[in-house]
């Protein structure tokens, strides 16, 4: 015979009862036959799980998500509408030329501000420098409103210098695979796009109502030198 506090005896007694009770149940396999894990009501469970996780009714959760999504869309729309003109304005102001469109790969320019009474003449420009190899093959075409120096070395290499009244030209520059820079040379703002891999590029600038465009397969330094020497 021994004495124990009732707490210890109660623990033992209740544990024995629990074991007894559990052993009175059908076997686990029988229970699983009787009550298999249900595959239905998945939606209800999911909803309740979401509600439980967020501590809110599922409707409120979705409403909140919809409101947030709408706000984001509105903000993005406002930003796009607000920023697009600013980009155009930025280019226009910074480069002092008529950028008509800017997208991922192309910058487009429109030249449409020719004064009717201009006294400029495309033939007044002197091309002070040409790379030696292109000098030999230079062909000059002079028209009423434009002048072209076309130098074709072979199928893959050429150099073209185009001097036009700006209102006659629309120009698009690809920014794909090229470096696009703007430099001030001889007080003119020059737009330069150059493909290092192909060793070719384009440089253009406006002088009053005249647009000067140089394009061809020359080194970057040569391209700049040609531009510097057109006066």
């Amino acid at each position, binding site marked *: 015979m021994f*004495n124990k506090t009732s707490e210890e005896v109660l623990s033992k007694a*209740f544990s024995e009862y629990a074991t007894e009770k*559990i052993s009175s149940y059908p076997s686990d396999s029988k*229970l*699983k036959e009787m009550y298999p*894990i249900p595959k239905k009501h*998945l939606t209800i469970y999911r909803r309740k*799980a979401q509600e*439980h*996780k967020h501590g809110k009714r599922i409707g409120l959760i979705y409403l909140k998500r919809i409101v947030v999504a709408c706000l984001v869309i509105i903000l993005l729309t406002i930003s796009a509408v607000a920023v697009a003109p600013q980009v155009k304005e930025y280019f226009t102001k910074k480069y002092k030329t008529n950028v008509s469109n800017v997208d991922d790969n192309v910058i487009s320019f429109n030249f449409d501000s020719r004064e009717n009474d201009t006294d400029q003449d495309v033939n007044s420009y002197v091309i002070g420098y040409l790379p030696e190899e292109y000098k030999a093959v230079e062909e000059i075409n002079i028209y009423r409103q434009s002048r072209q120096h076309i130098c074709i070395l072979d199928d893959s290499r050429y150099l073209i210098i185009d001097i036009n009244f700006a209102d006659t030209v629309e120009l698009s520059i690809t920014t794909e695979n090229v470096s696009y820079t703007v430099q001030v040379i001889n007080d003119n703002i020059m737009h330069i796009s150059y493909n290092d891999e192909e060793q070719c590029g384009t440089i253009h600038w406006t002088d009053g109502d005249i647009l000067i465009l140089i394009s061809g397969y020359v080194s970057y330094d040569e391209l700049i030198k040609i531009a510097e020497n057109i006066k």
Partner: protein
Amino acid sequence: MISIYPSMVDGEKNKNKIVFIYENYYSFMAYTAGEILNHSKHDVEDVVHSAILKIIENIDVVDITDVNKVKNLCGVIARNKAIDFLRAKKNQVLSLDDDNVFAEISGSDTDPGELLVNIEAYDIILEEIRKLPDIYRDVCLLKYVNSMKEKEIAALLGLTESAVGVRIYRAKQILKEALRKENIDV
């Protein structure tokens, strides 16, 4: 569905606990609830679901290393949820007046928890436990089998801590009374 419950708890250990309980004790809980709900499968599913949610809420205090303890815990929760379900269905109000009885505890000059019992009394206690109403027995099972604190039991069963204390007190009083009837000195 089994992937949903783990998403509701934090920590890999707790997620594993939920998966383990769901996979191994769903049917057991369903059977326990079914005993009260006359094995109405539709009601049983709802009750087991709410029982699992209750376990998830209290997952930190659940010990899955002892099969009997887990089964006891799952059984008690499922049984309580089934009783709650029946009450809600019948729109019944809990008749147990725990708060009034709480006054009894304060005024009592003998704490049943401090009683000494001898081994002869053990069989009488065990027999009396079998006869205890579920509402008293369940809290005692959680306290004495699962070694849970009254606060944890209260959270698990959706009771106040004082109500849990009252139920344990009443269970002990019933056992004490049974021993006295058998002329066993307590």
